[in-house]
């Protein structure tokens, strides 16, 4: 079963072709297309959320890369939420129009389910049940996963997402946006003993997160340095180090706690922040001590992408789930509302 996947929930336009027997055939993100050439000088900055103009060239690109034609496609999956309503609507109407024109079923997919299942695109896959840490610019959630569509929210951020905290700390240090990779780079040169930032909410029971206080703490430290002698390069590195360790430390502690609480030994990490090397190393080390394992997607599937939507959609389409008559997209959509996969019909490829 060959599935076309479309992701347009926020900034990225992602398109992919996933085959339930052959695996991922091709995938592409907006930035990989030379839209300047195709559209005679559209400014990409301005067009970053203009999914309308980006989606069709991307679909043609992945079809060509996979040496497929529209007749080969058996179904179309698209992100139906959560996300920006306007952006979701573009993807949904395009996907449904294509499916209708090709005479194949379509299915709206949950964006976070896509992230959660992204590690399944790797050669070595985690087995259910597991705990998933979804950590990106927009989300910080711990979820118990017993199977596709069987989710229980264990904890989430009460304010800023971890990735957002990275971006804002970067801004305070005069680093470019998005800030995660820049903080990580500076942190490598930072002195780990100079500052000790608070680990938000680790002393409280439960699995919720809060990163807003850490942001304010970082701001105060930056201002203290500015007042003392101006913000030096070394100050920036030391602050980046302390900040990164506080975020990573918090995430690691909560992940361990979640695994203990649920008595599980497999952790899946996905979302943009899961590309952070310090986080991967610290989590791997901490969990290895307890005989637990951590799985994560390839770096290109950590951030928003079409492949994860094609994969998640393929599992549900294979199980016979299809769209109803009306096109419905949802800005807010708790993942726990998703229906489970019918296990008799469902099969992983």
């Amino acid at each position, binding site marked *: 079963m060959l599935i076309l996947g479309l992701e347009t929930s926020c900034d990225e336009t992602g398109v992919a072709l996933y085959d339930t027997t052959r695996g991922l055939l091709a995938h592409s993100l907006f930035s990989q297309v030379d839209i300047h050439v195709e559209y005679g000088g559209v400014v990409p900055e301005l067009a970053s959320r203009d999914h309308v103009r980006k989606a069709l060239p991307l679909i043609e690109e992945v079809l060509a890369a996979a040496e497929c034609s529209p007749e080969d496609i058996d179904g179309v999956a698209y992100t139906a939420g959560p996300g*920006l*309503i*306007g952006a979701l609507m573009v993807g949904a109407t395009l996907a449904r129009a294509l499916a209708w024109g090709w005479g194949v079923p379509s299915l709206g997919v949950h964006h976070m389910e896509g992230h959660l299942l992204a590690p399944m695109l790797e050669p070595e896959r985690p087995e259910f049940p597991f705990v998933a840490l979804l950590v*990106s610019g927009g989300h910080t959630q711990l979820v118990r996963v017993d199977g596709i569509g069987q989710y229980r929210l264990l904890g989430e*951020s009460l*304010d800023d997402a971890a990735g957002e905290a990275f971006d804002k700390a970067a801004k*305070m240090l005069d680093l470019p*946006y998005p800030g995660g990779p820049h903080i990580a780079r500076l942190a490598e040169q930072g002195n780990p003993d100079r500052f000790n930032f608070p680990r938000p909410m680790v002393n409280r029971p439960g699995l919720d997160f809060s990163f*807003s206080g850490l942001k304010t703490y970082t701001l105060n430290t930056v201002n203290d340095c500015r007042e003392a002698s101006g913000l030096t390069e070394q100050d920036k590195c030391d602050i980046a180090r302390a900040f990164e360790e506080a975020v990573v430390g918090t995430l690691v502690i909560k992940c361990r706690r979640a695994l203990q609480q649920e008595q599980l030994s497999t952790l899946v990490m996905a979302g943009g922040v899961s590309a952070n090397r310090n986080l991967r190393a610290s989590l791997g080390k901490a969990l290895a001590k307890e005989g637990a394992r951590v799985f994560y997607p390839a770096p290109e599937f950590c951030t928003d992408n079409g492949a994860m939507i094609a994969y998640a959609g393929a599992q549900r389409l294979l199980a016979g789930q299809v769209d109803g008559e009306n096109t419905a997209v949802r*800005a807010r959509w708790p993942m726990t509302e998703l229906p489970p996969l019918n296990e008799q019909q469902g099969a992983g490829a």
Partner: protein
Amino acid sequence: MIDVSGQAAEWVVEAPEETAMTDLGAGLAAVCCPGLVIYLEGELGMGKTTFSRGLIRAMGHEGAVKSPTYTLVEPYALAGVEVYHFDLYRLGDPEELEFMGVRDYFRPDSICLIEWPVRGRGILPPADIGITIAPAGSGRRLHIQASTELGGSVLARWRQKHRSQQRQ
């Protein structure tokens, strides 16, 4: 500046700590009405989202009020009114607002709370109430300004409510 019914259309109030900030948000929630557009300005870490959290929770939302920095806007369907919490921090150009269908959000039956409105200048509708947050010692100072008749009447009721709460 419009002066409504003898009330000054400007108010400066201090929030010494986080609960004072959420209380101020809750105070505005108690007197605000559909159609209101509120701008929230101030540097990173000033408490714009904290203020918004106080307002949205006081209007009946249970659960977390996430920062909308990444999603640009978080919708809340509350009793009788839609509240849209915007954060335009990541906007590269005001015109991008058109790509997200911004006109659909500004309606007579919705309340729009907008962080970083400066990034949407020229496309956003004008504010009824503008709030600028700045540091004041270890706390924050809010400079609040009403720019329309609707904003003026809401601000007057908000101050009145605040005064009566202070007395208690």
